[in-house]
Structures are given as C-alpha cells and as structure tokens.
C-alpha cells in the first residue's frame, strides 16, 4: 500500500547522506516514486552511510548501514555505471520520464558526469532540477566542502547553543542535515507546484547554509536594526529565554545519573504556581523584572527543589499546576516509554532485504486522506533494476542480462 498524495510524481534521485536523502525520504513516504541512482562499481558508497554504523547485528558491508536504511525507506534502487555510454543512455531514459532530478553532490559533480542542467533540459525540457550543497552553486564558497557540523558553524546555529564564557556547545548531531533535507524537499515541491501551474521547469540552487541562516531571525534583526550583536558579554546563554524574556527558564539537575528537568514560567501566573509548588517565598521574584535581575538566585532556588526529584514525576507535578515542564528525554524514554510517540506510530517497522525488520523514524504529520506509509526498507544495491529498466523503460530480460554482464548495471 502507498500514499496517494504524491503518487503522480517520479524523481530521478542522486541524493545521499541525510542532507539530501532526507528530502526524497519525505516524498517517498507520501507515495512519490523515488528512483535512487547508484554506482555499481563503487557499490553505491559515494553515500558513505551505506556501510557505516549503527548495525543491526555483526554483519557489515554496503547492505548493512543502519542510517542508510533509515534515510532511504520506500525508495527504489537502480545501479548505473555512468562511466559507460550505455549507462548514460539509460540514465537519460529515466530522466525523460521523471518530473525532477535531485542531487546533493559537491557543486559541479553532476555536470562532470555529463548531466548538468543544460543536458537535463535537452533530455526533458520541463525538468525540475534541484541541487543541494553546503554553500550552493553560486558564490565564492561554492566549491567548499561541508557536512552538518560545518554548515551549522558557518550559518550561525552552532554559536547560539552554549553558555557564556564557554566554547559553543553547538548541536550534538547534524541538525542541518535534517533541515538541509527538509528545505530541499520544500524546494522540490515548490518547483513541482510552479511547474504544475506554468509548465515550466527550472534549476533550483539550494544552499544548506542559507537555509540554516533563515532559522535565526529575531537575533539577526536585533543586530541589523538595533546594532546589538549576539557575540557579546554574557551571551549566548541558550537554556535561558532570550525572546521573549522568561524566568525561570532552564534545565535543572534532577535525581539520578545525568538526569535533568526543563521548566519555565511564561508569566507571573506560572511563577506563582511554581513558587507555590516549590515552596519559594521571595518577594524579589514577584515580577519578571525581579526574576531576571536575580536569575542566578532564582535558578539556585529551583535547583534546590529539582535535584532530589525524579525528572518525570517533577514534570508531572508542574504540569498539574499548569506549568510547562518536561524531563530531558533519553532515547529510551521517548522511543520506548512515551505513550504519545507510541500512539502517533512514530517508530514504524520496515522490512529491509538483508537487515530484516528494523524500526525507523516516522513522519511527524498525519494526513486525514492521504497519510504516509513506511513499510519497505532502503533499497539493496540494484534491487529495482528489473522493475525500472525492464518494467518502466521496457528493456527485455536479455538486454538486462547483457547490461549486467557488461558492467553497466
């Protein structure tokens, strides 16, 4: 069973890692036919995630990368050796019946493979081409190499996470690989909507650092309008709230190993509820101005209460008096022990040709009419050669056997 939402869309897909594969992952979940093109000679390993940890068991190799499976669910896998003329011809045949071509190679790589935008247009005049790399294909840094942490550093996101007079804590994962993929999906679907209205294709140049920089609006305007930089004494202080100001607003020690509680007072009513529950009676904290002026003392008072308490029980006590609070969730807490992620169906199990049944990230949106479906794991190398080259393009079994023998697929 597939979602009907994007069942009319076919993508010739060169994306990899998460920053690219994440884009077509969303579309695959909603029923788009995503044809992932891989190199049979290098076993598809331009996407290093094909063979890297985590692993479900002791088996290793290009069919066992746990992240690859997670990021490529519901896609089709086709192998084409683009060093050969026949491989290039077959690619052109796939492009000719596709709505979009997508890639997140370093800038210029697809062009060097012989499939720059001009060539794509020759094959299919209304093709949508979306490229995605760290700094885009335009600008002095277009050749620079990145991965998630480099993108996050250069777009301002890393700097926003941390404590005063400390190095940046940054993001402990490739936040911008997720959003690089999400913004790329946004660009692809915007291009498809434009094409469905006008009949016109285009080349959309997506840059992960541009996308990341759009996520820091108010702080950027505070500088462009008020001349106040974020790089200043006492900043950033990311567990405190900058816009809007709130206090308390933080992550406090709780009982147990590496256990933490997040809570905040959005307004004076919240504060009165917190003060009542925690037994804090200090007039300095009665209004926001006072709580901000004595925020260190306020945090100490909160910590005195929180440090001996279970993070989830404490959060429940705060919720019971109408205060926003949450235990800092460890992976097990939120994946195996959270009734809300379970009710959502957030960790669906897919079936992979070698790994078997594996849980993956679900989709954080439910559609009333055309909801997502994630059942099939990431493709094995060349798993869908027959379906695409034979079924879709009409090449015979004999031809496919010859192509395999000649090292084309």
């Amino acid at each position, binding site marked *: 069973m597939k979602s009907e939402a994007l069942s009319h869309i076919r993508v010739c897909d060169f994306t990899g890692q998460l920053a690219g594969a994440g884009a077509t992952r969303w579309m695959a979940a909603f029923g788009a036919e995503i044809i992932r093109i891989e190199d049979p000679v290098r076993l598809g390993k331009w996407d290093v995630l094909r063979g890297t940890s985590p692993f479900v068991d002791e088996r290793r190799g290009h069919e066992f990368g746990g992240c690859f499976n997670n990021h490529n669910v519901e896609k089709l896998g086709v192998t084409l050796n683009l060093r050969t003329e026949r491989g290039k011809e077959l690619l052109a045949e796939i492009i000719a019946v596709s709505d979009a071509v997508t890639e997140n190679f370093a800038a210029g790589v697809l062009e060097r493979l012989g499939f720059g935008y001009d060539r794509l247009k020759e094959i299919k005049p209304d093709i949508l081409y979306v490229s995605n790399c760290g700094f885009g294909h335009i600008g002095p840094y277009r050749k620079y190499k990145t991965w998630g942490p480099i993108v996050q550093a250069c777009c301002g996101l890393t700097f926003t996470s941390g404590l005063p007079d400390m190095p940046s804590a940054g993001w402990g994962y490739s936040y911008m690989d997720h959003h690089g993929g999400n913004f790329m999906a946004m660009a692809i679907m915007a291009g498809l909507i434009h094409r469905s209205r006008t009949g016109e294709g285009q080349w959309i140049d997506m840059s992960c650092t541009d996308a990341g920089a759009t996520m*820091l609006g108010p702080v950027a305007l505070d500088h*462009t309008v008020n001349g106040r930089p974020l790089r200043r004494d006492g900043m950033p202080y990311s567990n405190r709230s900058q816009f809007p100001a709130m206090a308390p607003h933080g992550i406090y020690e709780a009982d147990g190993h590496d256990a933490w509680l997040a809570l*905040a007072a959005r307004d004076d009513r919240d504060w009165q509820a917190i003060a009542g529950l925690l037994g804090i009676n200090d007039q300095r904290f009665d209004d926001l101005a006072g709580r901000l002026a004595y925020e260190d003392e306020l945090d100490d008072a909160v910590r005195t209460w929180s440090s001996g308490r279970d993070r989830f029980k404490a959060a429940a006590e705060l919720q019971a008096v109408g205060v*926003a609070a949450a235990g800092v969730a460890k992976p097990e807490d939120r994946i195996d022990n959270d009734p809300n992620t379970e009710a959502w169906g957030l960790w669906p199990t897919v079936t992979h040709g070698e790994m078997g049944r594996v849980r*993956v990230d679900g989709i954080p949106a439910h559609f009333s009419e055309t909801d997502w479906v994630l059942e099939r794991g990431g493709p094995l190398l060349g798993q869908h050669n027959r379906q695409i080259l034979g079924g879709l393009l009409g090449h015979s079994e004999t031809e496919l056997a010859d192509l395999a023998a000649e090292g084309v697929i």
Partner: protein
Amino acid sequence: MTGNDLPGALAGIRVVELAGEASAYAGLLLAGMGAEVIVVEPPDGHHTRGFEPFLHDEPDPERSLWWWHYNASKLGVALDLGDEDDRDRFCSLVATADVVLESERPGRLGDLGIDHDTLRADHPELIWVSLTPFGRSGPRSQEESIDLTVLAGGGPVWSCGYDDHAIPPQRGGGNQGYQTGSVFAVLSAQTALLARDHTGQGQFVDVSMHAAANVTTEFGSVQWLVAGDEVQRQTGRHAAIEPTTFTRALSADGIDVNTGFPPRSARDFAVVVEWMESLGLKDQFEEFFFLEMGAQLEEDLHLSQVGQDPEVTAMFGAAREAVRFISENITAYEFFIGAQERGLAVGIIYSPEEVLADPHFQERGFPVEVEHEDLGRTFTYLGAPYIAPKSPYRIRHRAPHLGEHNSIIEALA
C-alpha cells in the same frame, strides 16, 4: 538571473494563518514562496507583538522585531474569535482560502464552532494544517508546552551540551523546536496541495512538534532504534557511543573554528605541509616529520588502525594537531578560507550577525533590504533558503500593522 518581479511558486494560493508563536515561521516560509498569507490576530494585537527585541528597545506593538521577522511578507487582519460576528467573518475568509494554518490549543476552535470538522463539509477542497505540541489527540495533547520543553522532552537536548556532564545539557537557540514543527507544517501544506492537484480533495493535517523533534535527532534516535545504544553528548561535536576527539579550536582573533576531520590522504597531508611552510610555522611544530611521512602515503589512513598501528596513530594525531596549531596562529577567517581553498572541510563558528556580513552570503543575495515606508527607511532582513530563478522565494514586504488589511474582510461582507 532572478527576475525580481516574478511571482513565487505558491502564487495564487491563499493561506489563512491564525497568529501563533509556533506556526509563525511556517507562515513566513509559505509567504516567502509567494502564497498570499493573511495572518489573523485579535483586535488588541497578538501577544507576540510584545516579544523582544524592539526597535531601539522601545516596547510597542508595531516595533517588535520578533513580529517583524516572522510576519514579513504577510497581510494582517484583526478579528475577535470570541465574537460571533467576527467568527462569521473568519468563516467567510476561510471560504476563500486554500490552506488554513493554526497552532491553537486542541479543542479551542471546536468549542468556538470554527474547526475543520465544522467547516469541511462546505469546503471539501480546503487544506487545514494544525501544528500543536503533541498532535491533536495523543495522550499528552493537553500538556503545557513551550519551545524549551519540546526540545527537552523530544530528544534534541539530550544530545547537546558539554563533555562535562555536570553541566546541564543545552537547548540550541532560536526556538528551533517551534521552527522544526513549522518546517514540517510547510512540507505538509505543499504535499497536500500537490495531492489536491490530482485528487481534487483537501484534507486535515495534524503536525506534532514533539514528533518533529523526535525524528530530528539523527543518531540519537537511529542508534537506539537499530542497535539499542544511547548516545552521550560532547562539547561541540556529535553525541556518540564512544568519545570522539576535539573538533573545536580557538583562533588567534578569539573566534572559534571547527577543525573538521583530520587529514587521512597523502594529498591532504601534503596540503598541510605546504600550508605550514607557507605560514612559517614548520619549525614550531615538533611533529612535522609525521606530516611529511603522511604525504608519502600510498593509501588513505584507516581509522581502524588508529590506536593500533603506532605510525598510523602518530600520523593521524600529528595531522589533527597540525590543523589545530595552524588555526591558533591565524585569524578564524584566514583559517576557514585557507583550509577550504586547500580542499580541507573546516568551518568558522559565526555569530548570526556575522553571517550577514560574509561575502559569500552577500553575493548570493541572502541579506535583503526591506522597506519600512512608515519609518522612512529600510532594514536588512534574512533572505531566501534557496535560489529559484523562475519562482523566486523572497521577502515581499514588511510585516503588517495591526488590522492593516482589514479591507480584505470588509470586501467579503
């Protein structure tokens, strides 16, 4: 290459957005793509108009830079949803919309008789995107929630912070819990629009910020799902099962850099050798010999041999230290450009305002000037996440004043 007068990809699509702290970014992105986004707020102004920072630090509903940023490119109308006549006006407005975007507390619009369940029968083509902390019907759907608790309870915070675990884990800045939810709300609206193209039907989309955070943690989730392993946070680098080595260094001008992954190939070793020599640092770096040895490698160093083979370990360690040593002797920008021009992937840890001053972002047209004719001047805003020459994303105009476009409502009467 970009025709500045071209309509955006979503030209002709009308979005009615109920002003909300969490959904504002979704509305901004849809408006940037060319949709006509009409933000509906109460007659006394949405409470986010009271958010800092303010123009010249003077609090005023028309001077909130938070409001300016998140509501740029939108039109604004004021309606009191507690008032029956205004609710009728809201329903008339929804009747003209392709998409409704809202982040109201589950149940509120139903109580007012203006939710999707009530309106869908008359508007089968309407797409309704709801963005809430836990979704509209989950067991935790009535919990109190803000950006901090979305990120703390949803997974991201666990992976962010410092090597010293006596320091609390950190919530990255910029309300990324809300914005992550908003990004998925935009993808949902686009997907539903494409679906409507061929099914003719609208639908309801329930977006959960908690779910969005949960599936935006990379290894944090996948390690647990696949192998049952729990990642541990580290200063400025990926949370991991086993500790990894530093990637952060402090440059000569006091700006942090990300030193990336140490050289492993002969080419990269040779580059570091050349760079150190050209900077005159060769004689100050005791392990230079190991760099020259690396430059003679016939195949790349294998990580599995680090810690096993003494020569590999020495070369790998020397390369990592050499890159750090270089970074400490020049400015962060010199380091970033010097390394990247040599093919080494490193980063400069910019503060957000520094991004706008960088020549690359300027050449891409990322900082844009937005006219505030009411104040007689322009201000610099953040621009587009991508360059789409035929259907440009852009900031179309400043955010609306309170009730500035009420004529849209009057015209419906």
